[in-house]
């Protein structure tokens, strides 16, 4: 049994930012991650992160401000964002950029040495800070460097458990008490006790087949807290990124359009101009609109082949592409064998980001005491029903830091008594037993076959356009797959040591449960708003409501709750924030 004050699950951007703050709070902390932190998918983030940075020409009438960042995000999310959470995000964002600067992050710069910014979709000003098109990589190296520095200076406070797979979240009387994790290389299971746990497991896109998410984003990260009793919020809201490289599911960043790339149909028309919702901002409309209209264009038979349209960067010129979008060029060369300087890129929309997640408030608290969540796996309602590009990287930093502050004050405030030894022993025995059962399965169906069927069902019925009949059918397919999983699965390898096949089989249960929840939530929301579009209910109904999922006795229960809108006018919301000056 290993004992810590705080356990952080996940070593991506939110997890590392939380770790830095936790050490600052003088907590004895362990970061448990299924891959080495620098292999987390945060490193693949390209476009940048949104913050209102000091404005150069403050005499100009029309300059960017934190209010405008707030309003853009709110509008992009169809007024369904939680105002407190969103206010926290936009008002803390500038400080996060300053902090990264101080830690040496290599942002791209203008000739006058100031930090460069670009425009992303749905933004009224250029406010996306970036490092060419490898922003995630630059930030992750900076954050991990800071963690190494802290570890070298205070070796007893911070410990990393790389390639440990968290199997269970331990909760006793609605108070968190630790996790059980499996060391992948050795197959050894261990109990970690903690006064508080921060969950930062990232995305869950691999429940879909057509996704730019990594192999690791299986959905297990949302399933574990759900099994422990933490409700999930807004799970029907799945963001589809407009431009994935056709066939290989590699993401072409929105920054490409931010820098001036355009979208063309087979006839070479800039088709976004012909749709009423995208005719003004065209390629820089909100992501849901661009994705939907690409899909419409394809369905109308004006796509390049049956599944894609062209993204055209040729107008940018070779110099700009090499300087601002070198990563895009590399990816195109490797995965499509083309050079965007001279050729158009075939692109198609694909699953990108799960807007929903573990339900939290703006302090990252959940319904379980001592359990906090931050980053993509969490949902404080920041993004409403449609996320603005560049807000999620900022979300990981802002709420990563807050989660450790919240955990710190929770740990200090309360007298903590861990449950007795028997509780941990029983939990350990139970998990060990589950593992043994999986290792002994001797059915006929391989986990990969179940996963492929689930992926197909999700792509076909829970994608950009949905309808009741399709969703019911998808639900039926998932139900059957769950039965197959329980009764007729085959896990190869009878040893837990370095057994990735086993890990995938464990995670598949989570994937199926999360897929089911996405379907049920989509079915229950009989309206269209943001990224959720129902062909059979194309209109938005009344005031925005969020959905909350709980699992009780194996049954999924979904409630819709009205989002509280503060009556105070926006200006008053920001009365405490002085406009940033140079």
């Amino acid at each position, binding site marked *: 049994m290993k004992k810590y004050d705080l356990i952080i699950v996940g070593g991506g951007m939110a997890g590392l930012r939380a770790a830095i703050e936790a050490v600052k709070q003088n907590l004895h902390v362990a970061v448990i991650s299924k*891959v*080495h932190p*620098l*292999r*987390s*998918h945060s*490193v*693949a983030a390209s476009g940048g992160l949104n913050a209102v940075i000091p404005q150069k020409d403050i005499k100009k009438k029309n300059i960017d401000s934190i209010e405008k960042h707030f309003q853009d995000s709110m509008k992009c999310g169809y007024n369904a964002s939680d105002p407190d959470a969103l206010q926290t995000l936009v008002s803390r964002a500038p400080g996060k950029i300053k902090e990264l*600067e*101080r*830690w*040496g992050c*290599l*942002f*791209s*710069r*203008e*000739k*006058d*040495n*100031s930090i460069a910014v670009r425009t992303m979709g749905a933004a009224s000003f250029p406010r996306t800070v970036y*490092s*060419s098109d*490898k922003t995630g*990589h*630059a930030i992750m*190296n*900076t954050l*991990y*460097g*800071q963690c*190494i*520095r802290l570890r*070298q200076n205070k070796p007893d406070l911070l410990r990393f458990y790389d390639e440990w797979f968290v199997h269970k979240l331990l909760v006793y009387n609605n108070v968190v008490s630790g996790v059980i994790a499996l060391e992948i*290389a050795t197959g050894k299971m261990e109990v970690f006790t903690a006064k508080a746990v921060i969950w930062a497991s990232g995305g869950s896109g691999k429940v879909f087949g057509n996704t*730019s998410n*990594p*192999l*690791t984003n299986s959905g297990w990260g949302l399933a574990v807290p759900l099994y422990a009793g933490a409700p999930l919020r807004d799970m029907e809201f799945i963001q589809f990124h407009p431009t994935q490289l056709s066939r*290989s*599911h*590699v*993401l072409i960043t929105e920054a490409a359009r931010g820098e001036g790339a355009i979208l063309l149909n087979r006839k070479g028309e800039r088709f976004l101009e012909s749709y009423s919702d995208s005719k003004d901002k065209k390629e820089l409309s909100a992501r849901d609109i661009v994705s939907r209209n690409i899909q419409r264009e394809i369905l109308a038979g004006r796509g390049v082949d049956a599944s894609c349209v062209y993204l055209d960067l040729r107008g940018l010129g070779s110099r700009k592409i090499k300087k601002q979008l070198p990563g895009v060029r*590399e*990816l195109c060369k*490797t*995965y499509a064998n083309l050079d965007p300087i001279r050729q158009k890129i075939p692109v198609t929309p694909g699953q990108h980001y799960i807007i929903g997640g573990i339900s939290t408030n703006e302090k990252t608290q959940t319904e379980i005491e001592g359990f906090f969540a931050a980053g993509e796996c969490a949902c404080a309602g920041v993004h409403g029903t449609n996320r603005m590009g560049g807000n999620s990287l900022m979300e990981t930093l802002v709420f990563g830091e807050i989660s450790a502050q919240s955990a710190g004050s929770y740990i200090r405030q309360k007298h903590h008594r861990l449950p007795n030894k028997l509780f941990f022993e029983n939990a350990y025995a139970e998990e060990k037993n589950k593992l043994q059962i999986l290792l002994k399965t001797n059915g006929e169906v*391989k*986990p*990969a076959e179940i996963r492929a069927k689930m992926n197909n069902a999700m792509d076909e019925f829970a994608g950009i356009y949905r309808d009741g009949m399709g969703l019911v059918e998808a639900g039926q397919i998932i139900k059957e797959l769950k039965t197959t999983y329980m009764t007729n699965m085959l*896990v*190869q*390898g009878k040893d837990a*040591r*370095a*057994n*990735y*096949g*086993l890990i995938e089989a464990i995670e598949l249960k989570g994937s199926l449960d999360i897929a089911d929840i996405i379907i049920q939530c989509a079915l229950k929301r009989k309206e269209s708003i943001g990224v959720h579009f129902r062909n059979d209910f194309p209109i938005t109904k009344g005031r925005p409501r969020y959905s909350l999922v709980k699992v009780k006795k194996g049954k999924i229960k979904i409630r819709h709750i009205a989002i509280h809108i503060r009556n105070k006018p926006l200006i008053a919301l920001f009365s405490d924030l002085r406009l940033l000056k140079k």
Partner: protein
Amino acid sequence: MKEKTYKLSVFRFDPFVDTKHRFINYKVPGSKAKTVLDALLFIRDHIDGTLAFRASCTQGRCGSCAMHINGKYGLACETPLRAGKTTIRPLAQLPIIKDLMVDMERFWEKYESIKPYLVRHSGEARQSYTNRKEMDSMIDCILCGACFSACMMTGMNPDFHGPAAYVTLNRFLRDERDAIHDQRMELVTGENGVFRCHSMYNCNDACPKNVKPSENILEIKKNIV
């Protein structure tokens, strides 16, 4: 018409069971795989679930799947399958955990030992445009470990930092904001330091991201002299 298949010969070794490694042949249908990683995933999914290897992003960004493919180091996810047999070995110089999965601890330890973080002069001086531009060529390293495995010196001398660590070191030596320039230099001038490199350029050949560690090492050497 018969479907095209790819042939792979994959290194298998379980140190707890086997006394010697072996190569096992697999056939992967052409419609299921374009890259070496696709093929390995197909094998794990449909032929042998016990094949151990790391993989995550599948798009050449995370550095998990560096291995030795047909006589050359590279990322499995970026290497297209080709006709004829593809032979796959794990990274060299590092202990094998199982099959293609190696223990990267020594690699990370060396990387961390060069202090891969900025220690600033007091004050909030910001980086200049020109200084930032100089770094463009050295920040693409994804720490996959290919250069570390290809390097002759890391094999002969366990204390040698290795190419990847030196790339990162050079990035910080070049950073005008860094305050511990001298300390960093001291770290690598010792007998196991940067002069152990005999400029064989194996690291340059191995790097899947075209970072050119040799050039960085040369620059550090010049800096010292």
